């Protein structure tokens, strides 16, 4: 189902037209306006990092993309307007959101959690043998990325460690076979070693499945390691945009806007 193309991903990413385009994106909660008109784009198959200090609007950006908060302006995914859709409709269009704080279904088993990810694919009464086989194959694929989940497949998700829950949340999102994967603070509350492992897996997923990934992170160093491109937000506005390498090298700029020293990697 997936043709492993590794090295060409980055090169190809820059030549193709933009997969996701946001223009003049506004969003907020009630009276509080968080995003004040963002313009950015993400190419097909790339990992895009959204960085910035607390309260910059990183999470809100993701929520606007997946329909969890109402946004104004325009966001197109492969030419289709994303704004004004419910989260469920966004999921139908192939947007899989891994919420901040994981959002696993703690009383369900690991495998049931993963099967919820395939909820849309098993819709209606046409649950043929082919579809069931495809879901089973996808489960295997997820277990391939996350061997720990296989060991715990019959355990309640609530009994997993934080890192395992984050793996489960990402695995569940992948069961949707998304074209766009949104990761909200995957490193939240995890040990550095676990976070690193997780990011390596995200990189592998991106390279093997060509899934476009937008990752929101406080830990700029980690995110820039796997990202092709990065956007830096501050107070609901885009202040810096560019290839990840350049942003990483531009340590001073990053220090100003991110409040962290990217070079030494003490972000968080």
């Amino acid at each position, binding site marked *: 189902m997936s043709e492993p193309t590794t090295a060409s991903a980055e090169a190809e990413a820059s030549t193709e037209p933009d997969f996701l385009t946001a223009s003049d994106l506004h969003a907020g909660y009630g009276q509080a306006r968080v995003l004040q008109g963002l313009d950015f784009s993400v190419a097909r198959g790339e990992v895009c990092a959204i960085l910035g200090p607390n309260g910059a609007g990183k999470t809100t950006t993701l929520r606007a993309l997946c329909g969890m908060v109402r946004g104004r302006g325009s966001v197109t995914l492969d030419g289709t307007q994303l704004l004004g859709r419910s*989260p469920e409709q966004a999921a139908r269009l192939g947007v899989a959101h891994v919420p901040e704080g994981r959002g696993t279904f703690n*009383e369900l*088993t690991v495998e*049931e959690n993963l099967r919820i990810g395939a*909820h849309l694919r098993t819709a209606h009464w046409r649950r043929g043998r082919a579809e069931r086989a495809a879901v089973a194959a996808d489960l295997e694929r997820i277990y391939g990325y996350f061997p720990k989940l296989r060991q715990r497949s019959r355990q309640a998700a609530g009994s997993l460690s934080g890192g395992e829950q984050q793996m489960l949340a990402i695995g569940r999102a992948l069961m949707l076979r998304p074209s766009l994967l949104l990761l909200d603070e995957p490193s939240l509350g995890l040990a550095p070693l676990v976070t690193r492992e997780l990011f390596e897996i995200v990189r592998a997923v991106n390279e093997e499945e060509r899934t476009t990934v937008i990752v929101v992170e406080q830990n700029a160093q980690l995110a820039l390691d796997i990202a092709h491109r990065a956007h830096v937000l501050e107070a609901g506005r885009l202040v810096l945009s560019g290839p990840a390498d350049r942003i990483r090298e531009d340590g001073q700029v990053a220090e100003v806007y991110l409040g962290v020293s990217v070079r030494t990697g003490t972000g968080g």
Partner: protein
Amino acid sequence: MSTIVATLATDRARRPRAALTALLAVAVAVGAPFYFAPFQVFQLTMVLVYAVALAGLNLLVGFGGQISLGHGAFFAAGAYTAAVMLDRYDTGHLATLPVAAAGCFLLGLGFGVPALRLRGLYLALVTLSFAVFLPPLLKRLEPVTGGSMGLTVDKLQPPAWSGLAEDQWMYFVALTVAAVALLLARNLLRSRAGRALLAVRDNESAAEVMGVRLSLHKTLAFAWSALFAGVSGCVYTWVIGYVSPDSFSFVLSITLLAGLVVGGLASLYGPLLGAAFVMYVPSWAQDISDAAPGVVFGLLIIVVMFVAPTGLAGLVGRLRSLAARRPTRTTPAPDRTPESAPDTDATSASESSAPPTPADPAPADAEPVGAPPRTEKE
């Protein structure tokens, strides 16, 4: 890794024992009406009838994470559907069951709409209003419902070939319905829709971003739950042979919820235990204190919730794991074990050697005074 191996090993060891337990349960369930006196058989029948309603309520409250203080209304709708059909149109008893089931399913769909906007106490209040407005409505619709006098209809009569007494026949019918209902509930929960329902309960927004349609699954939960309550009410009419608005006051709704919580939320056989509690405890309370049975009943609920905060089913599970002494036990998902539906295929009602027993038990429909139920499972 070691825990996995341990779980697998005990699973294998437990399978024959589980089968044995199930077989024993079936034997007891089938043998009971030949052993007990008619009145006791009648009481058991009522336990099974209530268990169906509680199983439905469990789908909504236990597994769906919503709340209904109005399930007595669906129960009443089922009961009246059967009574009116039998009284006015002279249909057979069996014909009333699908009509009551389908009617209540549709009612549930309709009344499930408030559940889309409201939750917790607000939803409880709205559902309570169903239960409150139904009895006066039944009284006003006198030409159809018989008004305050209610309707008296024929009870279910045993067919001649069975050789069973009336109470025994009704018991087996109720047993069949309850077994089918509990099995259906179990299968429903294992289906795609059931998984979606559990996901919505656990984390609504996460379920939504996975593409689960909240509105659909929330109203479906209401509809299924109402269907079970309606079926239960229908069988109630068959067994009691009499319906009146006062049998279905809002106290019934509260009793159902209390019974479910006492029996065990989100447990597959909790409804059976809860139904037994609702059926037997009020009469025991009467024995203990003639003056204030309600007080005794209320105190007993408090005691049960104190000793077994997860309900009687949770207590049973805890005792069992204590007995088995498995310290490395992993926390299981709520009640997925295959042995948790005891009387599954107890549908063989074709016993022909029955002692002739005089049967006309007085309907002792003791209604307890409801203790404040826990509002929502967290």
